[in-house]
């Protein structure tokens, strides 16, 4: 809520270079124009395309032909930014005044030769028609020895846009009103953004856009109780997951699977790494540092609340019932399997543990005590803690607790390539239906500090470099998802 009001007050920008293909497809939506905003700044994925690089020639629609029908001309990639390319029509030489940004994954970009194969003649832009009398000589000279896209480029793009989740599939997802438990939800039809076709891509056909799911909690009659997340989010699981690991779960009252509904197959979900729990392992009460799931800007002092040393040998219901009965008889706490932990934020915990949050032990969102100090990050002390400034040594002594051993945490740092200042499209995880223009402002190993452009720093979020909620520039345009432009405030209007 804090952001949606602000975003809705912003007027989206548009430009002719950005919207030509939308108009061609009959879809008219105003979209934020990354082109002007990017300038010379560094952009995520700018150098990450394999066979697509600066200098590669493509055939694209000629928007300056003066003809009533669609014709094409050859353009050269000047710069790459995420999915977007800055293009210059052949014949403009060093004249950059007509350069234009285009998403490379829209259907109307082709390898050189595509037009001839379809019997379409290439037509030079009107602006430069007078420059050359012999276009054949010019093109032979310009194109010989240069690179073009592979012939299967378009089909590879289309292939990559197939998503396995379908509308009415049932999943288990974290209950947003009680973080400590999961609920059943259904993949639902997407209700925001453009509906229709962009070129060959049909939007919102199966309730999935670019891997992002809008889930409606079961037992919600009016379909408004929703939850947005990516299909690879650690917050969603297959039906039965909660039971299999001993996680709290909100049962649906009398709801039966209706016609057309099916449980999403287990192989569709992100897999967690298997962990060796046979030796030293997390124990209830151990202290650590964790990203606060309710305030992703903060890394807080936290406590392990539930763990389980070993996974049960069988996941059958009968065995689990027996296990629960055994636990209850021995007065043992109910615990989690498969390397999952419940984490409570010190000083903010509800008495009944309803705000404990489930993190896997390999999660990049939990850290050993001292992580913030070593990396010069402000650690949020327990609410109401009197012994400020916070010192771990004193705190452990006062709370008669121990820190979780450092070697139990995920220390892998992928060669992610992010650098401070890079622009990207990022989900506001506090309002996860919104994908926003954002900047990487800080990098600590694999952890990225994401700033939402135009917003106060207090809305920044710590996000893992492999998060499914970070996208390259142009992702929203590619998938038809509405990109939230930078907030325009009095101070930043210029």
């Amino acid at each position: 809520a804090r952001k949606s009001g602000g975003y809705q007050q912003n007027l989206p920008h548009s430009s002719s270079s950005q919207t030509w293909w939308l108009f061609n497809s009959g879809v008219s939506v105003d979209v934020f124009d990354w082109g002007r905003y990017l300038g010379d700044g560094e952009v995520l994925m700018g150098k990450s395309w394999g066979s697509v690089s600066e200098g590669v020639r493509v055939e694209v629609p000629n928007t300056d032909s003066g003809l009533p029908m669609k014709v094409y001309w050859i353009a050269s990639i000047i710069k790459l930014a995420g999915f977007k390319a800055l293009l210059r029509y052949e014949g403009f030489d060093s004249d950059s005044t007509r350069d234009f940004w285009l998403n490379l994954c829209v259907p109307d970009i082709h390898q050189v030769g595509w037009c001839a194969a379809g019997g379409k003649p290439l037509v030079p832009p009107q602006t430069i028609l007078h420059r050359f009398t012999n276009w054949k000589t010019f093109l032979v000279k310009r194109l010989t020895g240069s690179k073009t896209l592979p012939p299967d480029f378009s089909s590879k793009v289309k292939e990559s846009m197939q998503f396995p989740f379908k509308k009415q599939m049932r999943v288990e997802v974290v209950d947003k009103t009680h973080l400590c438990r999961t609920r059943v939800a259904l993949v639902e039809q997407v209700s925001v953004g453009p509906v229709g076709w962009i070129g060959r891509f049909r939007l919102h056909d199966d309730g999935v856009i670019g891997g992002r799911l809008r889930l409606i909690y079961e037992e919600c009659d009016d379909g408004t109780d929703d939850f947005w997340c990516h299909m690879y989010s650690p917050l969603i699981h297959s039906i039965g997951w909660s039971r299999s690991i001993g996680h709290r779960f909100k049962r649906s009252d009398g709801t039966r699977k209706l016609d057309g509904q099916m449980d999403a197959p287990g192989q569709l979900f992100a897999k967690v790494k298997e962990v060796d729990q046979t030796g030293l392992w997390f124990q209830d009460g151990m202290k650590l540092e964790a990203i606060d799931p309710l305030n992703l800007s903060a890394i807080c002092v936290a406590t392990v609340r539930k763990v389980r040393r070993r996974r049960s040998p069988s996941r059958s219901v009968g065995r689990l019932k027996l296990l629960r009965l055994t636990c209850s008889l021995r007065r043992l706490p109910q615990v989690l399997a498969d390397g999952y932990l419940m984490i409570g934020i010190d000083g903010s915990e509800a008495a009944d543990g309803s705000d404990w949050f489930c993190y896997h032990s390999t999660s990049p969102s939990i850290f050993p005590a001292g992580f913030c100090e070593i990396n010069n990050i402000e650690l949020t002390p327990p609410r109401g803690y009197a012994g400020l400034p916070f010192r771990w040594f004193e705190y452990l002594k006062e709370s008669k607790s121990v820190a979780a051993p450092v070697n139990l945490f995920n220390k892998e740092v992928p060669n992610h390539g992010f650098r401070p200042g890079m622009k990207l499209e990022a989900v506001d995880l506090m309002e996860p239906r919104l994908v926003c223009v954002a900047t990487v402002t800080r990098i600590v190993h694999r952890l990225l500090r994401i700033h939402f452009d135009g917003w106060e720093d207090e809305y920044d979020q710590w996000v893992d470099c492999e998060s499914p909620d970070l996208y390259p520039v142009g992702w929203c345009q590619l998938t038809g998802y509405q990109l939230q432009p930078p907030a325009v405030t009095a101070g930043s209007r210029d």
Partner: protein
Amino acid sequence: DAGGRKWEQKQVQIKTLEGEFSVTMWASDDNK
């Protein structure tokens, strides 16, 4: 190249209003 892609020289057909001709260009065999 460094990404393990094989680049191949290809005769590419071009059609303009003046007629058809071909040029030699490079294309990757694997768009990752």
